[in-house]
Protein backbone atom coordinates (compact mmCIF):
# COMPACT_ATOMS: atom_id res chain seq x y z
CA UNK A 1 0.00 0.00 0.00
CA UNK A 2 1.34 3.42 -0.88
CA UNK A 3 1.95 5.52 2.21
CA UNK A 4 -0.08 8.71 2.65
CA UNK A 5 3.06 10.78 2.85
CA UNK A 6 6.53 9.81 1.77
CA UNK A 7 9.39 12.22 2.29
CA UNK A 8 12.70 11.45 0.61
CA UNK A 9 15.98 13.13 1.48
CA UNK A 10 14.43 16.51 2.20
CA UNK A 11 16.91 19.35 2.75
CA UNK A 12 16.42 23.05 3.19
CA UNK A 13 19.01 25.67 3.97
CA UNK A 14 18.77 29.45 4.14
CA UNK A 15 21.40 32.03 3.33
CA UNK A 16 21.81 34.57 6.06
CA UNK A 17 23.38 37.86 5.01
CA UNK A 18 26.33 38.82 7.13
CA UNK A 19 25.97 42.57 6.59
CA UNK A 20 28.72 44.85 5.32
CA UNK A 21 31.66 43.22 7.07
CA UNK A 22 30.34 39.90 8.30
CA UNK A 23 30.38 36.73 6.28
CA UNK A 24 27.27 35.18 4.80
CA UNK A 25 26.16 32.19 6.84
CA UNK A 26 24.22 29.17 5.73
CA UNK A 27 21.55 28.01 8.12
CA UNK A 28 20.60 24.39 7.66
CA UNK A 29 17.02 24.10 8.85
CA UNK A 30 16.20 20.65 7.50
CA UNK A 31 18.98 18.17 6.75
CA UNK A 32 18.25 14.97 4.81
CA UNK A 33 14.92 14.08 6.37
CA UNK A 34 13.15 10.96 5.12
CA UNK A 35 10.10 9.18 6.46
CA UNK A 36 6.90 7.50 5.42
CA UNK A 37 3.55 7.70 7.10
CA UNK A 38 0.71 5.28 6.46
CA UNK A 39 -2.81 6.56 5.84
CA UNK A 40 -4.80 7.15 9.02
CA UNK A 41 -1.69 7.55 11.16
CA UNK A 42 -0.59 10.50 13.24
CA UNK A 43 3.08 11.33 13.13
CA UNK A 44 4.08 13.60 15.98
CA UNK A 45 7.16 15.69 15.23
CA UNK A 46 8.84 16.99 18.38
CA UNK A 47 11.95 19.00 19.12
CA UNK A 48 13.02 22.27 20.65
CA UNK A 49 12.65 25.69 18.99
CA UNK A 50 14.79 26.06 15.88
CA UNK A 51 15.09 22.32 15.21
CA UNK A 52 13.43 22.72 11.81
CA UNK A 53 10.02 21.21 12.53
CA UNK A 54 8.08 24.20 11.24
CA UNK A 55 10.31 24.43 8.16
CA UNK A 56 9.54 20.76 7.50
CA UNK A 57 5.82 21.56 7.73
CA UNK A 58 6.13 24.47 5.32
CA UNK A 59 8.01 22.35 2.78
CA UNK A 60 5.42 19.58 2.92
CA UNK A 61 2.67 22.18 2.47
CA UNK A 62 4.48 23.54 -0.58
CA UNK A 63 4.92 26.97 0.99
CA UNK A 64 8.68 26.63 0.76
CA UNK A 65 10.60 24.85 -1.98
CA UNK A 66 13.10 22.27 -0.66
CA UNK A 67 16.79 22.66 -1.50
CA UNK A 68 16.87 18.94 -2.22
CA UNK A 69 14.62 15.94 -1.91
CA UNK A 70 10.96 15.42 -2.66
CA UNK A 71 7.59 14.89 -1.03
CA UNK A 72 5.15 12.28 -2.31
CA UNK A 73 1.51 12.30 -1.32
CA UNK A 74 -0.25 9.02 -2.04
CA UNK A 75 2.53 8.14 -4.43
CA UNK A 76 2.33 11.38 -6.44
CA UNK A 77 5.05 14.02 -6.41
CA UNK A 78 3.83 17.13 -4.65
CA UNK A 79 6.06 19.42 -6.69
CA UNK A 80 4.41 18.26 -9.92
CA UNK A 81 0.88 19.11 -8.76
CA UNK A 82 -0.78 22.48 -9.27
CA UNK A 83 -1.84 24.35 -6.20
CA UNK A 84 -5.54 23.52 -6.47
CA UNK A 85 -4.89 19.79 -6.78
CA UNK A 86 -2.52 19.97 -3.83
CA UNK A 87 -5.15 21.82 -1.79
CA UNK A 88 -7.53 18.87 -2.24
CA UNK A 89 -4.95 16.50 -0.69
CA UNK A 90 -3.18 18.42 2.02
CA UNK A 91 -4.22 21.30 4.27
CA UNK A 92 -2.68 23.17 7.21
CA UNK A 93 -3.85 24.13 10.68
CA UNK A 94 -1.52 26.79 12.02
CA UNK A 95 -0.42 27.61 15.51
CA UNK A 96 -1.76 31.08 16.13
CA UNK A 97 -5.49 31.36 15.35
CA UNK A 98 -5.15 35.14 15.68
CA UNK A 99 -2.76 35.28 12.72
CA UNK A 100 -4.21 32.52 10.59
CA UNK A 101 -7.61 34.12 9.93
CA UNK A 102 -7.98 37.18 7.72
CA UNK A 103 -9.42 39.83 10.09
CA UNK A 104 -11.39 41.49 7.28
CA UNK A 105 -13.43 38.47 6.19
CA UNK A 106 -16.47 36.86 7.72
CA UNK A 107 -16.13 33.37 9.20
CA UNK A 108 -18.35 31.80 6.53
CA UNK A 109 -16.23 33.38 3.77
CA UNK A 110 -13.03 32.13 5.41
CA UNK A 111 -14.34 28.58 5.57
CA UNK A 112 -15.77 28.75 2.03
CA UNK A 113 -12.46 30.07 0.62
CA UNK A 114 -10.89 26.66 -0.30
CA UNK A 115 -14.14 25.63 -2.04
CA UNK A 116 -14.35 28.89 -3.97
CA UNK A 117 -10.70 28.58 -4.95
CA UNK A 118 -11.42 25.28 -6.67
CA UNK A 119 -13.40 27.35 -9.15
CA UNK A 120 -15.83 24.63 -10.32
CA UNK A 121 -18.12 24.21 -7.31
CA UNK A 122 -21.53 25.92 -7.64
CA UNK A 123 -22.10 28.79 -5.18
CA UNK A 124 -25.07 27.02 -3.64
CA UNK A 125 -23.00 23.94 -2.84
CA UNK A 126 -20.14 26.09 -1.52
CA UNK A 127 -22.45 27.73 1.02
CA UNK A 128 -23.98 24.41 2.06
CA UNK A 129 -20.68 22.61 2.50
CA UNK A 130 -19.14 25.52 4.44
CA UNK A 131 -22.17 25.70 6.75
CA UNK A 132 -22.09 21.93 7.26
CA UNK A 133 -18.38 22.00 8.14
CA UNK A 134 -18.85 24.89 10.57
CA UNK A 135 -21.65 22.99 12.29
CA UNK A 136 -19.39 19.92 12.46
CA UNK A 137 -16.65 21.80 14.33
CA UNK A 138 -19.24 23.19 16.73
CA UNK A 139 -19.88 26.73 15.50
CA UNK A 140 -23.36 28.18 15.09
CA UNK A 141 -24.83 29.77 11.97
CA UNK A 142 -24.92 33.03 13.87
CA UNK A 143 -21.17 32.85 14.57
CA UNK A 144 -20.55 32.26 10.85
CA UNK A 145 -21.67 35.81 10.17
CA UNK A 146 -19.08 37.28 12.54
CA UNK A 147 -15.52 38.47 12.01
CA UNK A 148 -12.55 36.65 13.59
CA UNK A 149 -12.01 39.42 16.16
CA UNK A 150 -15.43 38.61 17.62
CA UNK A 151 -14.50 35.01 18.44
CA UNK A 152 -12.36 33.48 21.21
CA UNK A 153 -9.08 31.70 20.57
CA UNK A 154 -10.65 28.25 20.75
CA UNK A 155 -13.48 29.25 18.41
CA UNK A 156 -10.99 30.71 15.97
CA UNK A 157 -9.01 27.47 15.96
CA UNK A 158 -12.25 25.63 15.20
CA UNK A 159 -12.69 27.95 12.22
CA UNK A 160 -9.14 27.17 11.08
CA UNK A 161 -9.90 23.43 11.37
CA UNK A 162 -13.15 23.84 9.42
CA UNK A 163 -11.27 25.72 6.69
CA UNK A 164 -8.66 22.95 6.53
CA UNK A 165 -11.22 20.15 6.31
CA UNK A 166 -13.89 21.67 4.08
CA UNK A 167 -12.19 20.28 0.95
CA UNK A 168 -12.03 16.81 2.57
CA UNK A 169 -8.23 16.53 2.26
CA UNK A 170 -6.35 13.30 2.95
CA UNK A 171 -3.63 14.88 5.06
CA UNK A 172 -3.65 17.70 7.61
CA UNK A 173 -0.46 19.37 8.75
CA UNK A 174 -1.03 20.62 12.29
CA UNK A 175 1.73 23.06 13.22
CA UNK A 176 1.44 23.43 17.00
CA UNK A 177 -2.36 23.72 16.76
CA UNK A 178 -2.91 24.07 20.50
CA UNK A 179 0.14 25.87 21.84
CA UNK A 180 -1.45 29.33 21.48
CA UNK A 181 -4.57 28.30 23.35
CA UNK A 182 -5.61 28.27 26.99
CA UNK A 183 -5.05 24.92 28.67
CA UNK A 184 -8.80 24.47 29.19
CA UNK A 185 -9.42 24.87 25.46
CA UNK A 186 -6.49 22.73 24.30
CA UNK A 187 -8.19 19.47 25.23
CA UNK A 188 -11.38 20.40 23.36
CA UNK A 189 -9.42 21.15 20.20
CA UNK A 190 -7.37 17.94 20.51
CA UNK A 191 -10.51 15.87 20.98
CA UNK A 192 -12.14 17.57 18.00
CA UNK A 193 -9.08 16.79 15.86
CA UNK A 194 -9.14 13.16 17.01
CA UNK A 195 -12.86 12.76 16.29
CA UNK A 196 -12.52 14.30 12.85
CA UNK A 197 -9.58 12.04 12.05
CA UNK A 198 -11.63 8.94 12.77
CA UNK A 199 -14.70 10.21 10.93
CA UNK A 200 -12.95 11.45 7.81
CA UNK A 201 -10.07 8.93 7.86
CA UNK A 202 -7.43 11.66 7.93
CA UNK A 203 -3.69 11.42 8.27
CA UNK A 204 -2.05 13.99 10.55
CA UNK A 205 1.44 15.34 10.70
CA UNK A 206 1.33 16.80 14.17
CA UNK A 207 4.09 19.23 15.06
CA UNK A 208 4.50 20.19 18.68
CA UNK A 209 7.00 20.86 21.40
CA UNK A 210 4.49 19.68 23.97
CA UNK A 211 5.30 16.03 24.67
CA UNK A 212 2.13 15.40 26.66
CA UNK A 213 0.05 16.50 23.66
CA UNK A 214 2.06 14.34 21.27
CA UNK A 215 1.75 11.31 23.54
CA UNK A 216 -2.00 11.86 23.56
CA UNK A 217 -2.56 12.13 19.81
CA UNK A 218 0.33 10.48 17.96
CA UNK A 219 0.65 6.92 16.73
CA UNK A 220 4.26 7.48 15.73
CA UNK A 221 6.79 10.05 16.84
CA UNK A 222 9.81 11.60 15.15
CA UNK A 223 12.28 13.53 17.30
CA UNK A 224 14.12 16.29 15.46
CA UNK A 225 17.40 17.81 16.49
CA UNK A 226 19.10 20.53 14.40
CA UNK A 227 17.28 19.58 11.21
CA UNK A 228 17.58 15.78 11.43
CA UNK A 229 15.26 13.14 12.71
CA UNK A 230 17.44 11.58 15.44
CA UNK A 231 14.88 9.07 16.63
CA UNK A 232 11.73 7.67 15.12
CA UNK A 233 9.50 5.08 16.79
CA UNK A 234 5.93 4.17 17.53
CA UNK A 235 4.50 6.43 20.20
CA UNK A 236 4.29 3.55 22.69
CA UNK A 237 7.88 2.48 22.27
CA UNK A 238 9.26 6.01 22.26
CA UNK A 239 7.56 7.13 25.43
CA UNK A 240 8.14 3.81 27.22
CA UNK A 241 11.73 3.22 26.20
CA UNK A 242 13.44 6.17 24.53
CA UNK A 243 16.73 5.18 22.86
CA UNK A 244 18.47 8.39 21.82
CA UNK A 245 20.03 10.49 24.63
CA UNK A 246 18.29 13.57 23.25
CA UNK A 247 14.89 11.89 23.40
CA UNK A 248 15.63 10.84 26.97
CA UNK A 249 16.54 14.41 27.85
CA UNK A 250 13.36 15.73 26.19
CA UNK A 251 11.19 13.31 28.13
CA UNK A 252 13.00 14.18 31.34
CA UNK A 253 12.46 17.89 30.74
CA UNK A 254 8.68 17.66 31.11
CA UNK A 255 7.56 19.72 34.05
CA UNK A 256 5.98 17.76 36.85
CA UNK A 257 3.00 19.11 38.72
CA UNK A 258 4.78 18.34 41.99
CA UNK A 259 5.58 21.58 43.86
CA UNK A 260 9.11 22.39 44.92
CA UNK A 261 10.87 20.39 42.23
CA UNK A 262 11.24 23.35 39.88
CA UNK A 263 12.59 22.95 36.38
CA UNK A 264 14.28 19.55 36.06
CA UNK A 265 17.97 19.51 35.15
CA UNK A 266 18.37 17.23 32.17
CA UNK A 267 22.12 17.61 31.78
CA UNK A 268 21.97 19.41 28.42
CA UNK A 269 23.88 22.45 29.58
CA UNK A 270 22.64 25.97 29.04
CA UNK A 271 23.66 26.71 25.47
CA UNK A 272 21.06 26.48 22.74
CA UNK A 273 22.07 24.83 19.47
CA UNK A 274 22.88 27.12 16.54
CA UNK A 275 21.56 25.83 13.18
CA UNK A 276 24.09 28.04 11.39
CA UNK A 277 26.95 26.24 13.09
CA UNK A 278 26.11 22.55 13.30
CA UNK A 279 28.70 20.44 15.15
CA UNK A 280 30.53 17.81 13.05
CA UNK A 281 30.01 14.05 13.41
CA UNK A 282 27.16 13.52 15.84
CA UNK A 283 25.43 16.91 15.94
CA UNK A 284 24.24 16.31 19.47
CA UNK A 285 27.62 15.45 21.03
CA UNK A 286 28.48 18.89 22.56
CA UNK A 287 25.33 18.73 24.67
CA UNK A 288 25.06 14.99 25.14
CA UNK A 289 25.38 13.90 28.79
CA UNK A 290 26.74 10.46 27.80
CA UNK A 291 28.99 11.50 24.88
CA UNK A 292 32.19 9.58 24.25
CA UNK A 293 35.28 10.81 22.37
CA UNK A 294 34.29 8.92 19.20
CA UNK A 295 31.03 10.90 19.04
CA UNK A 296 33.03 13.98 17.96
CA UNK A 297 34.68 12.15 15.08
CA UNK A 298 32.26 9.55 13.73
CA UNK A 299 28.90 10.32 12.11
CA UNK A 300 26.18 8.02 13.44
CA UNK A 301 23.80 6.15 11.17
CA UNK A 302 20.27 5.07 11.88
CA UNK A 303 20.18 1.97 14.07
CA UNK A 304 17.07 -0.18 14.25
CA UNK A 305 15.53 -0.13 17.71
CA UNK A 306 12.59 -1.91 19.25
CA UNK A 307 9.92 0.40 17.87
CA UNK A 308 11.79 2.25 15.12
CA UNK A 309 15.23 3.72 14.54
CA UNK A 310 17.67 6.13 16.20
CA UNK A 311 20.91 7.82 15.16
CA UNK A 312 23.36 7.26 18.01
CA UNK A 313 26.82 5.65 18.10
CA UNK A 314 26.25 4.30 21.58
CA UNK A 315 23.39 2.14 20.31
CA UNK A 316 25.71 0.76 17.66
CA UNK A 317 28.19 -0.18 20.37
CA UNK A 318 25.53 -1.77 22.51
CA UNK A 319 24.92 -4.52 19.99
CA UNK A 320 28.60 -5.55 19.91
CA UNK A 321 30.53 -7.31 22.68
Amino acid at each position, binding site marked *: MTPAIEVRGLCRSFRQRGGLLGQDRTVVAVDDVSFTLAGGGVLGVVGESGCGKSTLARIILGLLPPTAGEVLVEGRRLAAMDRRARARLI*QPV*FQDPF*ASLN*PRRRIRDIVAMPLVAQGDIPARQVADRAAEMLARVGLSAEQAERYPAQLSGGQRQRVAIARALVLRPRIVICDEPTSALDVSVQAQILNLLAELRRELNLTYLFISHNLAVVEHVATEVAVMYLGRIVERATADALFRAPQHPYTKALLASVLTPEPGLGVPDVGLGETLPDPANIPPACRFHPRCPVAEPRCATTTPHAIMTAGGAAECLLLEGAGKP
Partner: protein
Amino acid sequence: MRQAGLVLGGVIVGIALLCAILAPWIVPHDPFLQNLDNRLAVPFWMEGSNPAHLLGTDQLGRDYLSRLVHGARISMLIGVLTVVASGLIGTTLGVLGGFFGGRVDDAVLFAITCRLAIPVVLVALAVVGLLGSSLTLVILVLGLLLWDRFAVVARSTTMQLRNLDYVAAAWSAGVSTPGILLKEILPNIASHLAVVATLEMALAILLEAALSFLGLGVPPPLPSWGLMIAEGKDYMFFSPWVIFIPGVTLFIVVLGINLLGDGLRDLLGAGDTR
Protein backbone atom coordinates in the same frame (compact mmCIF):
# COMPACT_ATOMS: atom_id res chain seq x y z
CA MET B 1 -10.16 64.96 21.81
CA ARG B 2 -8.77 62.83 18.99
CA GLN B 3 -12.26 62.48 17.62
CA ALA B 4 -12.60 66.28 17.47
CA GLY B 5 -9.97 66.53 14.71
CA LEU B 6 -11.62 63.75 12.75
CA VAL B 7 -15.05 65.36 13.02
CA LEU B 8 -13.78 68.86 12.18
CA GLY B 9 -11.79 67.53 9.22
CA GLY B 10 -14.76 65.49 8.05
CA VAL B 11 -17.08 68.50 8.23
CA ILE B 12 -14.67 70.74 6.29
CA VAL B 13 -14.04 68.12 3.61
CA GLY B 14 -17.76 67.35 3.48
CA ILE B 15 -18.64 71.01 2.88
CA ALA B 16 -15.92 71.31 0.23
CA LEU B 17 -17.21 68.17 -1.52
CA LEU B 18 -20.81 69.41 -1.35
CA CYS B 19 -19.77 72.76 -2.83
CA ALA B 20 -17.89 70.93 -5.57
CA ILE B 21 -20.82 68.70 -6.48
CA LEU B 22 -23.61 71.26 -6.14
CA ALA B 23 -21.72 74.36 -7.35
CA PRO B 24 -23.94 75.23 -10.36
CA TRP B 25 -27.12 75.03 -8.28
CA ILE B 26 -26.08 76.84 -5.12
CA VAL B 27 -24.10 79.84 -6.34
CA PRO B 28 -25.93 83.18 -6.52
CA HIS B 29 -24.31 84.33 -9.79
CA ASP B 30 -22.66 82.99 -12.92
CA PRO B 31 -18.97 82.79 -11.97
CA PHE B 32 -17.93 83.79 -15.51
CA LEU B 33 -20.28 86.80 -15.85
CA GLN B 34 -18.23 90.01 -15.96
CA ASN B 35 -19.58 93.37 -14.88
CA LEU B 36 -17.00 96.08 -15.41
CA ASP B 37 -19.26 98.66 -13.70
CA ASN B 38 -19.00 96.74 -10.44
CA ARG B 39 -15.30 95.86 -10.15
CA LEU B 40 -13.63 95.02 -6.82
CA ALA B 41 -16.80 95.40 -4.77
CA VAL B 42 -16.02 94.91 -1.06
CA PRO B 43 -17.10 91.78 0.91
CA PHE B 44 -19.83 91.75 3.56
CA TRP B 45 -17.71 92.68 6.59
CA MET B 46 -16.59 95.98 5.08
CA GLU B 47 -18.50 99.22 4.75
CA GLY B 48 -20.36 99.81 1.50
CA SER B 49 -20.79 96.11 0.70
CA ASN B 50 -23.52 94.88 -1.60
CA PRO B 51 -25.68 92.08 -0.16
CA ALA B 52 -25.99 90.61 -3.68
CA HIS B 53 -22.22 89.98 -3.68
CA LEU B 54 -21.47 88.59 -0.22
CA LEU B 55 -17.75 88.21 -0.83
CA GLY B 56 -17.53 91.14 -3.22
CA THR B 57 -16.36 90.99 -6.84
CA ASP B 58 -13.01 90.61 -8.54
CA GLN B 59 -11.13 92.93 -10.92
CA LEU B 60 -13.52 92.01 -13.74
CA GLY B 61 -16.67 92.38 -11.64
CA ARG B 62 -17.31 88.62 -11.30
CA ASP B 63 -19.06 87.48 -8.11
CA TYR B 64 -16.32 86.25 -5.75
CA LEU B 65 -18.46 83.80 -3.75
CA SER B 66 -19.60 82.08 -6.94
CA ARG B 67 -16.02 81.79 -8.15
CA LEU B 68 -14.87 80.46 -4.78
CA VAL B 69 -17.53 77.73 -4.75
CA HIS B 70 -16.73 76.80 -8.33
CA GLY B 71 -13.07 76.78 -7.32
CA ALA B 72 -13.87 73.99 -4.85
CA ARG B 73 -15.01 72.01 -7.88
CA ILE B 74 -11.62 72.33 -9.56
CA SER B 75 -9.68 71.61 -6.36
CA MET B 76 -11.75 68.56 -5.40
CA LEU B 77 -11.80 67.24 -8.95
CA ILE B 78 -8.04 67.48 -9.12
CA GLY B 79 -7.61 66.11 -5.60
CA VAL B 80 -9.86 63.09 -6.13
CA LEU B 81 -8.79 62.19 -9.66
CA THR B 82 -5.10 62.60 -8.83
CA VAL B 83 -5.48 60.33 -5.81
CA VAL B 84 -7.38 57.73 -7.84
CA ALA B 85 -4.76 57.69 -10.61
CA SER B 86 -1.69 57.82 -8.37
CA GLY B 87 -3.31 55.40 -5.90
CA LEU B 88 -3.87 52.84 -8.63
CA ILE B 89 -0.33 53.13 -9.93
CA GLY B 90 1.37 53.26 -6.54
CA THR B 91 -0.68 50.52 -4.88
CA THR B 92 -0.25 48.15 -7.81
CA LEU B 93 3.52 48.65 -7.88
CA GLY B 94 3.88 48.53 -4.10
CA VAL B 95 1.77 45.42 -3.57
CA LEU B 96 3.52 43.54 -6.38
CA GLY B 97 6.98 44.51 -5.10
CA GLY B 98 6.14 43.73 -1.49
CA PHE B 99 4.46 40.41 -2.23
CA PHE B 100 6.86 38.91 -4.74
CA GLY B 101 10.11 40.41 -3.46
CA GLY B 102 13.32 39.59 -5.31
CA ARG B 103 13.62 40.88 -8.86
CA VAL B 104 10.10 42.35 -8.92
CA ASP B 105 10.83 44.29 -5.75
CA ASP B 106 14.14 45.53 -7.18
CA ALA B 107 12.29 46.84 -10.24
CA VAL B 108 9.65 48.55 -8.07
CA LEU B 109 12.30 50.14 -5.86
CA PHE B 110 14.10 51.38 -8.96
CA ALA B 111 10.86 52.90 -10.28
CA ILE B 112 10.27 54.64 -6.93
CA THR B 113 13.83 56.01 -6.92
CA CYS B 114 13.42 57.28 -10.48
CA ARG B 115 10.13 58.92 -9.61
CA LEU B 116 11.66 60.65 -6.59
CA ALA B 117 14.39 62.03 -8.82
CA ILE B 118 11.83 63.80 -11.03
CA PRO B 119 10.94 67.34 -9.91
CA VAL B 120 7.16 67.67 -10.26
CA VAL B 121 7.07 71.42 -10.96
CA LEU B 122 9.78 71.16 -13.63
CA VAL B 123 7.92 68.37 -15.41
CA ALA B 124 4.66 70.34 -15.20
CA LEU B 125 6.47 73.36 -16.67
CA ALA B 126 7.87 71.34 -19.55
CA VAL B 127 4.58 69.59 -20.30
CA VAL B 128 2.58 72.83 -20.21
CA GLY B 129 5.21 74.48 -22.39
CA LEU B 130 4.86 71.70 -24.94
CA LEU B 131 1.13 71.06 -24.85
CA GLY B 132 -0.44 74.20 -23.39
CA SER B 133 -2.25 74.35 -20.07
CA SER B 134 -5.48 72.48 -19.41
CA LEU B 135 -7.28 70.88 -16.50
CA THR B 136 -6.82 67.38 -17.95
CA LEU B 137 -3.11 67.94 -18.30
CA VAL B 138 -2.73 69.05 -14.68
CA ILE B 139 -4.58 65.94 -13.48
CA LEU B 140 -2.49 63.71 -15.73
CA VAL B 141 0.81 65.23 -14.63
CA LEU B 142 -0.04 65.07 -10.93
CA GLY B 143 -1.65 61.63 -11.17
CA LEU B 144 1.35 60.17 -12.93
CA LEU B 145 3.84 61.76 -10.54
CA LEU B 146 2.38 61.55 -7.04
CA TRP B 147 2.26 57.75 -6.62
CA ASP B 148 5.56 57.31 -4.78
CA ARG B 149 4.14 57.43 -1.25
CA PHE B 150 1.37 54.97 -2.16
CA ALA B 151 4.02 52.61 -3.52
CA VAL B 152 6.26 52.90 -0.45
CA VAL B 153 3.42 52.35 2.03
CA ALA B 154 1.76 49.56 0.02
CA ARG B 155 5.11 47.81 -0.37
CA SER B 156 6.10 47.89 3.29
CA THR B 157 2.66 46.90 4.61
CA THR B 158 2.39 44.07 2.07
CA MET B 159 5.78 42.76 3.14
CA GLN B 160 4.54 42.57 6.71
CA LEU B 161 1.39 40.71 5.69
CA ARG B 162 2.77 38.26 3.18
CA ASN B 163 4.39 36.10 5.86
CA LEU B 164 1.29 35.94 8.03
CA ASP B 165 -0.42 32.59 8.42
CA TYR B 166 -3.69 33.66 6.80
CA VAL B 167 -1.85 34.37 3.57
CA ALA B 168 -0.13 30.97 3.88
CA ALA B 169 -3.53 29.39 4.53
CA ALA B 170 -5.01 31.00 1.42
CA TRP B 171 -2.00 29.82 -0.58
CA SER B 172 -2.41 26.28 0.75
CA ALA B 173 -6.14 26.43 0.00
CA GLY B 174 -5.26 26.91 -3.66
CA VAL B 175 -6.38 30.53 -3.97
CA SER B 176 -4.88 32.14 -7.07
CA THR B 177 -2.20 34.82 -6.65
CA PRO B 178 -4.51 37.66 -7.85
CA GLY B 179 -7.13 36.32 -5.44
CA ILE B 180 -4.68 36.47 -2.55
CA LEU B 181 -3.58 39.99 -3.46
CA LEU B 182 -7.14 41.31 -3.84
CA LYS B 183 -8.90 39.51 -1.00
CA GLU B 184 -6.25 38.77 1.61
CA ILE B 185 -3.70 41.58 1.22
CA LEU B 186 -5.56 44.61 -0.15
CA PRO B 187 -8.39 44.81 2.44
CA ASN B 188 -5.80 44.68 5.20
CA ILE B 189 -3.62 47.49 3.87
CA ALA B 190 -6.59 49.65 2.82
CA SER B 191 -6.62 51.62 6.07
CA HIS B 192 -2.97 52.61 5.63
CA LEU B 193 -3.66 53.58 2.02
CA ALA B 194 -6.65 55.70 3.07
CA VAL B 195 -4.35 57.78 5.24
CA VAL B 196 -1.87 58.20 2.39
CA ALA B 197 -4.77 59.15 0.10
CA THR B 198 -5.75 62.09 2.30
CA LEU B 199 -2.17 63.34 2.46
CA GLU B 200 -1.76 63.04 -1.31
CA MET B 201 -5.08 64.77 -1.90
CA ALA B 202 -4.01 67.76 0.18
CA LEU B 203 -0.67 67.80 -1.64
CA ALA B 204 -2.35 67.62 -5.06
CA ILE B 205 -4.67 70.52 -4.21
CA LEU B 206 -1.75 72.63 -3.00
CA LEU B 207 0.32 71.75 -6.06
CA GLU B 208 -2.54 72.65 -8.38
CA ALA B 209 -2.89 76.02 -6.64
CA ALA B 210 0.85 76.58 -6.94
CA LEU B 211 0.92 75.58 -10.60
CA SER B 212 -2.12 77.72 -11.39
CA PHE B 213 -0.54 80.64 -9.55
CA LEU B 214 2.51 80.28 -11.79
CA GLY B 215 0.25 80.12 -14.84
CA LEU B 216 1.10 76.45 -15.46
CA GLY B 217 -2.07 74.91 -14.15
CA VAL B 218 -5.69 75.48 -14.89
CA PRO B 219 -6.13 78.10 -17.67
CA PRO B 220 -8.28 81.21 -17.07
CA PRO B 221 -11.16 81.93 -16.89
CA LEU B 222 -11.72 78.73 -14.86
CA PRO B 223 -12.06 79.73 -11.20
CA SER B 224 -9.20 77.85 -9.55
CA TRP B 225 -8.19 79.13 -6.11
CA GLY B 226 -4.54 79.40 -7.12
CA LEU B 227 -5.53 81.31 -10.24
CA MET B 228 -7.74 83.63 -8.18
CA ILE B 229 -4.75 84.46 -5.99
CA ALA B 230 -2.58 85.02 -9.06
CA GLU B 231 -5.14 87.29 -10.72
CA GLY B 232 -5.70 89.22 -7.49
CA LYS B 233 -2.05 89.84 -6.66
CA ASP B 234 -1.95 93.17 -8.58
CA TYR B 235 -4.80 94.51 -6.44
CA MET B 236 -3.67 93.20 -3.05
CA PHE B 237 -2.59 96.60 -1.66
CA PHE B 238 -5.96 98.30 -2.07
CA SER B 239 -8.23 95.24 -2.11
CA PRO B 240 -6.48 92.64 0.04
CA TRP B 241 -9.53 90.38 0.25
CA VAL B 242 -9.06 89.25 -3.37
CA ILE B 243 -6.10 87.13 -2.32
CA PHE B 244 -7.09 86.80 1.32
CA ILE B 245 -10.37 84.95 0.63
CA PRO B 246 -9.09 82.20 -1.71
CA GLY B 247 -5.89 81.90 0.36
CA VAL B 248 -7.76 81.27 3.60
CA THR B 249 -10.17 78.87 1.85
CA LEU B 250 -7.25 76.87 0.47
CA PHE B 251 -5.65 76.79 3.91
CA ILE B 252 -8.84 75.62 5.63
CA VAL B 253 -9.57 72.88 3.08
CA VAL B 254 -6.02 71.50 3.17
CA LEU B 255 -6.05 71.65 6.96
CA GLY B 256 -9.40 69.83 6.97
CA ILE B 257 -8.08 67.05 4.73
CA ASN B 258 -5.01 66.63 6.93
CA LEU B 259 -7.11 66.54 10.10
CA LEU B 260 -9.29 63.89 8.48
CA GLY B 261 -6.18 61.88 7.56
CA ASP B 262 -4.73 62.09 11.08
CA GLY B 263 -8.09 61.17 12.58
CA LEU B 264 -8.42 58.19 10.24
CA ARG B 265 -4.94 57.01 11.15
CA ASP B 266 -5.70 57.10 14.86
CA LEU B 267 -9.11 55.50 14.39
CA LEU B 268 -7.92 52.68 12.13
CA GLY B 269 -4.58 52.27 13.88
CA ALA B 270 -6.20 51.64 17.25
CA GLY B 271 -8.93 49.25 16.18
CA ASP B 272 -6.95 47.74 13.35
CA THR B 273 -6.61 44.04 12.54
CA ARG B 274 -5.81 42.87 16.08
